[in-house]
């Protein structure tokens, strides 16, 4: 009975694992050949399921399912090919970071497209009746559908393997993932194959979406929920390795399922001691991923020693020659004065809601600024930066609940805890570089995200509530919610007080970061961004500088998180609001949007991002679609961010006057170093 139960769980695990195999195979080959980290892979997966819904509807479950499983992947594959042609292609040769931003924009666009067309309700994907019957083999009872999924996915994997290893096209694609230049040099137009690879990858994802949709259900969050495990699979198996994707997919599927089934259950009893399975559901795969990355950064089956580093560069933005330093400082001063006066205008408008939006902007401005320190200056791209934002928020809430309500103590606690966390994570992660660094930080963030669900003291999935900040220290001061005073007949309250607190902290943070970047420490960070190898050979301990930058950045992100907890608009600190990977993506988007490597650029980015969100969402439900499209256009045409627009315009005007030929946007006309 126990054995049968175990085999049943194993079969469930293999079923899920097969879905991961299909997803990861595409992701991995796309990365291997093109160096593209495709975040939109999960949405293409979801798109496959939704297309099938529409195909099955007129034909019914019997024939419809089989038509869908052929037609939907082809349709999604065509969409994938179109995406590669129009958006991914112009970015080859740039830093993989730009693919992250681009595909993150695609996530927003596709996801919102799905909501627009199919609605947000959870749907059932009808499968033929004979597939959904339960079947009992040797006492093990699972649905026929499980066997169908395993066999069908295995068949597809074998076909893919055959195509990659036994056909001319596959040879070229594999050669391309080894050495792209070499393939070009022997006269093969490898770029043509990129479209094919992207399309086939998308089609495989769509198949995965259909089979999983039939197994569970179809909902708008399904892409989001598989994309991170799929990345874990790819990294575990080795980026670019098909064999790794198969092995990693099955491993993650089985481990996830078994941990879910057996967490906390008794494994064995020896006399008085019982050995129980630790309750690590959700955590195991991330622990596994971190362990593998630390021991064998290239993954279990990865072969690439060095990633193709230095091929692209991170484009930093700045006014450069357009505005003199003094003008910029003056503009900054004017901006601060304007922000200081903004509440008065809001007061006359009589709607304090705008103040709530401004408060959010300020918090995220600090968060984005903290990211710029590591990304725009030290050239490190963390995909898990929200771990500091989230841990900062949780720390602040816990300090308020259990220790002190004083806002000073609370924020200091958030900074310190996050700085320590950053030191630990940094010490482990900075040894690996580039994409692996991005992935290992993502794993740490996901580990913490899963962990807060587990612990009692973090309130599980409900999060924490019932905390309140006290503006002051000791007994001197006032609780934030008690603050209310009138001025000229207008009622002022906690939102105003918090606004000025946040504004003060944001300005101080910017001045702090600016000072740091003009000091010896910051100057070394910039040299590391320019050339890590060179920095090392003029005598700098590069890893030590990176780690310190990471600590400063983590502490500052913690401060932003702490402010979130203190904010009067925040009633609950929940896992999804603070630790969901989406926020790590958002903050990168914001920093790039504003202009990296400038410190103030990401802060402006925060204003524009939330301003646009607020503005658009009051007119349409499809604001994500518009913002996502905006990102995509930015990545393609304004990669140095909003702050580079003045010099871009000046450049265009100059070119128009001189007719000197086309403007090359990648040429660094603008620079960050002040």
């Amino acid at each position, binding site marked *: 009975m126990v054995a049968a139960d175990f085999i049943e769980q194993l079969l469930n695990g293999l079923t899920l694992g097969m879905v991961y195999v299909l997803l990861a195979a595409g992701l991995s080959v796309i990365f291997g050949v093109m160096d593209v980290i495709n975040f939109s892979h999960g949405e293409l997966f979801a798109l496959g399921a939704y297309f099938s819904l529409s195909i099955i509807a007129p034909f019914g479950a019997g024939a419809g399912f089989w038509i869908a499983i052929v037609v939907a992947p082809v349709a999604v594959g065509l969409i994938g090919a179109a995406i590669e042609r129009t958006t991914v292609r112009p970015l080859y040769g740039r830093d993989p970071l730009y693919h992250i931003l681009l595909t993150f924009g695609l996530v927003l666009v596709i996801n919102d497209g799905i909501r627009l067309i199919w609605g947000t309700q959870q749907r059932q994907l009808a499968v033929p009746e004979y597939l959904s019957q339960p079947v009992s083999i040797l006492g093990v009872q699972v649905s026929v559908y499980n066997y169908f999924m395993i066999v069908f996915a295995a068949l597809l994997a074998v076909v893919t393997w055959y195509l990659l290893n036994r056909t001319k096209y596959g040879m070229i694609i594999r050669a391309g993932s080894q050495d792209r230049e070499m393939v070009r040099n022997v006269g093969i137009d490898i770029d043509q194959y990129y479209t094919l690879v992207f399309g086939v990858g998308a089609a495989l994802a769509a198949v995965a979406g259909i089979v999983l949709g039939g197994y569970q259900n179809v909902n708008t969050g399904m892409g989001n929920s598989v994309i991170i495990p799929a990345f874990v699979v790819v990294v575990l198996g080795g980026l670019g390795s098909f064999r790794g994707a198969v092995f990693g997919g099955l491993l993650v599927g089985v481990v996830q399922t078994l941990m879910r089934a057996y967490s906390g259950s008794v494994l064995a009893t020896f006399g008085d001691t019982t050995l129980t399975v630790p309750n690590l559901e959700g955590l195991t795969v991330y622990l596994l991923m971190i362990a593998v990355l630390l021991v064998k950064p290239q993954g279990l089956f990865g072969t690439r020693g060095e990633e193709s580093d230095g091929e692209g560069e991170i484009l930093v933005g700045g006014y450069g020659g357009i505005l003199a330093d003094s003008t910029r400082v003056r503009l900054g001063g004017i901006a601060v004065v304007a922000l200081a006066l903004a509440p008065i205008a809001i007061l006359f408008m009589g709607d304090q809601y705008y103040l709530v939006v401004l408060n959010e902007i300020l918090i995220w401005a600090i968060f984005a600024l903290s990211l710029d320190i590591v990304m725009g200056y030290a050239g490190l791209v963390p995909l898990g930066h929200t771990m500091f934002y989230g841990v900062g928020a949780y720390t602040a809430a816990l300090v308020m609940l259990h220790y002190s309500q004083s806002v000073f103590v609370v924020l200091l606690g958030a900074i310190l805890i996050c700085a320590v966390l950053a030191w630990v994570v940094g010490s482990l992660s900075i040894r690996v570089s580039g994409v692996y660094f991005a992935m290992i930080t993502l794993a740490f963030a996901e580990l913490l995200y899963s962990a807060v669900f587990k612990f009692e003291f973090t309130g599980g999935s409900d999060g924490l509530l019932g905390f309140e900040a006290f503006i002051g220290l000791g007994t001197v001061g006032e609780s934030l919610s008690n603050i209310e005073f009138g001025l000229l007949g207008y009622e002022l309250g906690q939102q105003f007080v918090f606004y000025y607190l946040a504004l003060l902290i944001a300005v101080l943070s910017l001045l702090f970061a600016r000072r740091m970047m*003009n000091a*010896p420490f910051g100057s070394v960070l*910039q040299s590391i961004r320019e050339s890590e190898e060179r920095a090392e050979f*003029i005598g700098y301990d590069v890893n030590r500088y990176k780690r310190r930058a990471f600590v400063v950045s983590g502490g500052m992100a913690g401060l932003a998180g702490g402010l979130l907890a203190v904010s009067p608009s925040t009633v609950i600190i929940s896992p999804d609001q603070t630790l969901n990977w989406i926020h790590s993506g958002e903050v990168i988007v914001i920093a790039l949007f504003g202009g990296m490597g400038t410190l103030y650029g990401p802060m402006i980015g925060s204003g524009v991002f939330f301003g646009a969100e607020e503005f658009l969402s009051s007119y349409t439900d499809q604001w994500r679609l518009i913002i996502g499209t905006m990102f995509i256009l930015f990545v393609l045409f304004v990669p140095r961010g909003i702050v580079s627009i003045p010099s871009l315009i000046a450049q265009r005007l100059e070119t128009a006057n001189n007719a000197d030929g086309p403007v090359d946007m990648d040429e660094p006309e603008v*620079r960050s170093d002040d």
Partner: protein
Amino acid sequence: MTETVLETDGLTKRFGKLTAVDDVSLSVADGEFRSVIGPNGAGKTTTFNLITGALSPSEGVVRFKGEDITDVAPHERVGRGLGRSFQITNVFGGLTVRENVRLAAQSVHSDEINPGEALFRDKNGFDEITEQTGTVLEQIGLRERADEHAEALAYGDQRRLELGLVLATDPDLVMLDEPTAGMSSEETQATMDLIDEVLSDRSLMLIEHDIDLVMRVSDRITVLTRGEELASGTPEEIANNEDVRDAYLGGVRE
């Protein structure tokens, strides 16, 4: 000036079954201009990387100024006075020429900067560093162009800056990795003149495959073949060495 600045003892590096560097024992005297030559695949670059610390040896010891530095990290070797230049110009393109040199000068003085200063004091407020930066800019002849971005410099000036970065770290021994690779004969001459002009008071170790060049400039030459040391001696001795002629000069000569 007969003190030894650099010494390797039984230096060996294996990559799987391939022994790239096999039991190489060198000794470079203080103030010497040593060249290491050999055909492609002789282990020149691997030897270079073992000495600078980019690779760690399978066996053997590297001693610098009498101290064992085999397990010392590359950046610390630089701190102890072991500088290197890059074959492909490797400067901080997005920073100004002055900032490039200043960073190298700052590295030498970083022990004197306390953490508070490192984080918050204006980087241009350290007199010694500023002074050294000025001196080096003068020496490499780029004072006039100090405020331009390094990537805007002409190729020749970038090579000058490259050497300036090495010079600013105030090294006792400079390792040069084929500094004239891919250059015309005039450019080669200009580069060697520059090295002579800027680095003549330091010990130098040049990795090169252009024999004529090496014969002209070196005090002593070491010849490597298949990872092993074939001969060491003055240019004259090397030119007259039978083994070298057979193995190298007599073979494929570029």
